[in-house]
């Protein structure tokens, strides 16, 4: 049993739950994207932002230290992380499932990333159901997504049916009217058939799609679960002050595996392409018993050549 909210009361509801913090939602500008909402009327739930919510949990560039080379005893001054409480509204199930996977990397038992941890603890996840699937490239139906959210909205025409997925979520909708409904599961035209890809590393189906690849890294930039990063020191013109920062990187770039002296371990583009897909569907599963792909299809949709790894996998020869 869930609750129901009339659409005309949505802004009022969002303003209440995000009070004292930021509301993040899809906003239509030149393109549809998640951003901190300034005017609630900008919120747009038509379609799905091509860029996932991961940037709010580990930004594309994150300062770690201020560098001061004149201070020999303390050249590193740790950057203080400031984060307001946030509410993400309008995220899709793929977005939030992406976080479940990233938790395995950034909140492991031994090591936790400070920014990511703080962001996870201070963000409420208010999702919206995909009915119908927002993109022809979506294939999440094949990926066994979990019902992971604080609240989940389903569009019922003039109202939203809302289901809570956490205790926190329950308290947010406690005053709303009860309603009996079952949210329909997401239906996708696109499917990923074979999931055990371990035996097909040398299958010729890889070649056709790989031949189109430009190694541009758009697939990893748009992926819900790709957060590989580089750590870079950069000095100002005075060569005394600067920053050490984290910056998103991509396993699709040639220099991703380059070591001092110039050796590159994944020199061939096809090895980098396969590495991305095997990481998503085999290596991650071996470690954490789940796929690292949420089936959002963003890697396909964002690709300038529309390279579609599901086509590769669906066409493996037995």
């Amino acid at each position: 049993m869930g609750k129901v909210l009339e659409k005309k009361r949505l802004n009022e509801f969002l303003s209440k739950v995000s009070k004292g913090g930021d509301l993040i939602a899809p906003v239509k500008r030149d393109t549809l994207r998640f951003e901190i909402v300034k005017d609630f009327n900008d919120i747009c739930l038509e379609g799905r932002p091509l860029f996932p919510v991961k940037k709010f949990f580990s930004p594309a560039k994150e300062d770690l230290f201020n560098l001061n080379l004149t201070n020999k005893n303390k050249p590193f001054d740790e950057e203080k992380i400031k984060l307001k409480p946030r509410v993400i509204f309008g995220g899709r199930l793929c977005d939030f499932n992406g976080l479940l996977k990233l938790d395995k990397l950034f909140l492991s038992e031994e090591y936790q990333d400070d920014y990511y941890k703080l962001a996870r603890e201070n963000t409420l996840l208010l999702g919206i159901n995909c009915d119908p699937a927002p993109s022809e490239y979506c294939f999440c139906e094949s990926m066994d997504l979990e019902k992971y959210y604080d609240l989940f909205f389903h569009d019922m025409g003039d109202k939203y049916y809302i289901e809570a997925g956490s205790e926190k979520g329950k308290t947010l909708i406690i005053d709303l009217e009860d309603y009996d409904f079952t949210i329909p599961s997401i239906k996708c035209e696109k499917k990923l058939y074979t999931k055990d890809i371990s035996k097909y590393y040398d299958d010729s189906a890889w070649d056709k799609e790989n031949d189109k690849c430009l190694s541009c890294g758009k697939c990893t930039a748009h992926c819900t679960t790709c957060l590989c990063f580089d750590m870079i020191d950069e000095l100002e013109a005075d060569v005394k002050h600067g920053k050490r920062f984290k910056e998103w990187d991509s396993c699709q770039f040639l220099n991703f595996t380059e070591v001092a002296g110039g050796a590159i371990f994944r020199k061939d583009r096809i090895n980098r392409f396969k590495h991305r897909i095997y990481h998503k569907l085999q290596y991650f599963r071996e470690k954490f018993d789940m796929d690292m792909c949420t089936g959002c299809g963003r890697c396909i949709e964002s690709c300038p050549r529309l390279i579609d790894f599901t086509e590769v996998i669906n066409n493996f020869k037995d």
Partner: protein
Amino acid sequence: MLFNATPFRIVKKEKQTEDTYLFRLEKPKKEKIKLCYEPGEFFLVSVPGIGEAPFSVCACSKDFIEFNIRGLGDVTNHLIKLKPGDYLWLRGPYGTSYPMKELKGNSLVIIGGGTGVAPLRGVLKYVEERRADYDRVHAFFGFRDPNEILFKKDMKLWNRIFDLNLTVDKAPKSYKGRVGLVTKVVEESGLNNKNKIAMVCGPPIMIKFTIQTLEKMGFHHDQIFVSFERRMKCGVGMCGHCMISGKYVCKDGPVFRYNKVKGIRE
């Protein structure tokens, strides 16, 4: 924070080759940093304003730690210019180590190529202090040419207390030592696998052929340890750079039992 570094003072710097130096760093007294007690682990060493680079522990006690640093990239070319009294910024230790306690009683077959000898020096230094815990120690080290030979001081001692086999790939005619690939020397040693553990570290091509040689000599894959070099940025299994076939060299390695990484793809 995850990436905070601690300053270690350089107390000794010893020239090894034209571009390689052995640094001894003193453990800061107040810091509660855990220095490794088993070799194989690595630290990320920082130069503020330039960046970080990973280094295997080359020797270590509770008071000091040693790194072998070759000027090859931006960070290392700066590091080799530092002098005793200067500070290095360290975070770590990270990664797996050679399970030295578990290996007690075995004979060790230690095979290194070039700078890959550095982490293995950590093993030999460890064994030096606990000689009675291990049976025979056979060390095979290959360098490109006589000028590239590292740890010459140690080699004198090791030649006395271990079965040391030193070789260079090429040398001028006047060179009196052994010339030839290290794999060849290993093969000609006639060793069998009985009660033995092999440890291999060096360039990828050298690792590949050494394993083939060890296989021919009867070594099982779980009797071989390999240590990989990869680009390691974070050291904690997050940044993705060092991953091979789903294994983070920084966290699941850099020391792997070979049966765990056999057949992995780049």
